[in-house]
């Protein structure tokens, strides 16, 4: 015992492999299960004991999905709302972030903390007054009723991500642009945004994902079937008439609605991770 040099035992490889396998299975399992259900023939979906692998796989549910629900409309609404909210949010956030990044004194940090505080309020607090406003303006079933709140609710995150990127740009570039007489918007457009492009993309992806996934406001403000976004559309169909819409089709709907996000994560995992943690760890 005393003779051996104190050498750290390497973590056994099988333990690591087991841990990684369990982690991946847990993270992927539920989504994978939906995908399997979506391509399983009806008779096998409701067979006991459970059939795990569909034999043979079928695309019937995906095809039928577009017949029974205004599913294209759901997808188009989500894409439209999330895209405009993302553009509006990033534009306004970039303007604010550029102003904050070079702000001297304690005001900068105070304003950033105010933003953080605002982002912590649960949306239920805002829901009813927003609903009153939307109704008074006649915006029920109009995309603008979601675009404006989505842009606002994601503003804190976007400002945090962009501000920390703009701060890292060399101060001299700013000064030079100022001396050249560029207006703030021109400076932002020609200098800040191109130089901080990776962070701009990060902010845009994060905002897009949050908007695509939002449920409470979409459920409340979009009452007409063809005005619904994909989350509210699927979830209200699912909870209202679980027994009218067969599970195969519902699973197909879930898979189609989540597919764009799966691609975003696989392509931009690093960016998403850095964006989410940047704000959180600075504070």
């Amino acid at each position, binding site marked *: 015992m005393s003779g051996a040099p104190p050498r*750290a*035992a390497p973590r056994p490889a099988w333990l*690591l492999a087991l841990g990684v396998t369990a*982690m991946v299975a847990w*993270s992927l399992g*539920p989504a994978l*299960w*939906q995908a399997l*259900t979506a391509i399983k023939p009806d008779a096998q979906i*409701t067979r*006991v*004991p459970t059939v795990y692998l569909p034999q043979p796989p079928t695309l019937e549910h995906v095809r039928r999905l577009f017949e029974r629900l205004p599913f294209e409309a759901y997808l188009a609404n989500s894409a439209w709302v999330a895209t405009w909210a993302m553009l509006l949010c990033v534009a*306004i*956030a970039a*303007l*604010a972030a*550029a*102003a*904050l990044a070079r702000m*001297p*004194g304690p005001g900068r940090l105070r304003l950033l903390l105010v933003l953080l505080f*605002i982002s*912590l*309020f*649960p949306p*239920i*607090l*805002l*829901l*009813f*007054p927003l609903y009153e406003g939307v109704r008074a303006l006649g915006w029920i079933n109009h995309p603008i009723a979601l675009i*404006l*709140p989505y842009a*606002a*609710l994601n*503003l804190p995150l976007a*400002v945090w991500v962009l501000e920390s990127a703009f701060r890292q740009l060399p101060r001299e570039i700013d000064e030079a642009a100022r001396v050249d007489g560029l207006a703030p918007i021109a400076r932002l457009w020609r200098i800040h945004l191109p130089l901080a492009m990776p962070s701009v993309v990060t902010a845009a992806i994060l905002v897009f*994902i949050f908007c*695509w*996934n939002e*449920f409470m406001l979409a*459920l409340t403000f979009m009452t007409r079937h063809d005005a619904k976004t994909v*989350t509210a559309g699927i*979830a209200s169909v699912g*909870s209202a008439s679980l027994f009218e819409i067969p*599970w195969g089709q519902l699973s197909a709907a*879930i898979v189609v*609605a989540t597919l764009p*996000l*799966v691609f*975003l*994560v696989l392509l931009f*995992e690093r960016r*998403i*991770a850095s964006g*989410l*943690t940047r704000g*959180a*760890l600075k*504070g």
Partner: protein
Amino acid sequence: MTPRVWTRERMLSLLPAALLLALVVVLPIARVVALSVMRTEMDEGFRLEFAGLDPFVRLWQDGRWWTSLRNTAVFTASSVAAEMVLGIAFALLLHGSFRGRGLARAIVMLPWALPTAVMALAWSWIFNDSFGVANDLLRRLGLASEPIAWLGQGGTAMFAMVAADVWKTTPFVTLIVLAGLQAIPHEVMEAARVDGLNARQRLTRITLPLLVPSLIVALAFRMVQAYGAFDLVYVMTGGGPGGATETVSLYAYQNYFRYLDFGYGSAIATQGVLIAILLVLIVLRFTRGAGTRG
């Protein structure tokens, strides 16, 4: 000469953000607080009249409010606790080096990016009493002989909701802890190794204490979010069975759009948030104290 803080240019640049937040966040909060001391009269159309502290007396005597508060507390405490443990474990695994680590990271991130409301439906399919895969797995493992009606009983429905929430939000904790791990200088771990600390000692004496700031951040964010849970409850259980999983957010929502009692709904939402803020402040004080001592 010190640079001026509030130049005209700076104020103009901040104006759109301030305006948008005023319209969508500040004004609605003022309105909901005002509504929380109003009574909804429905005799001749809708009329709101000042009710003073009556709504708060009503809350105090409302058994359903206390139940929803307790449900929210149980949901928040169990899912946040499980997420912290699982998140730390996942982060430690992903911090190691193995083949396919990049792909594993992306897969672990995946649940975070998928819509809660939609995946709640997927989870209610997993926990379906007749055809759900949860029951089938339990039966195959020999852990249950009879199928369990997961969403049909209070305790198991809460468990199912917590499982879905843990699945969905563990990635967030993992990310923050992972960033914290990567910020620990390599030399510190090397020095500990030279000093003869074994893997377990390095974890409990060096890694975890250094992670405390990241853990506090993750804890605060997750508590607030879990406390406001709505999507999952609305879709998976609708608050049932018999109100056993109804959260504060859902109870407020029901008052707004089902009972059309706007004043009382606002009182519930406002009180709920006040309690949440208080809770987070207490936890922050508590953990920060522990962090500086440990």
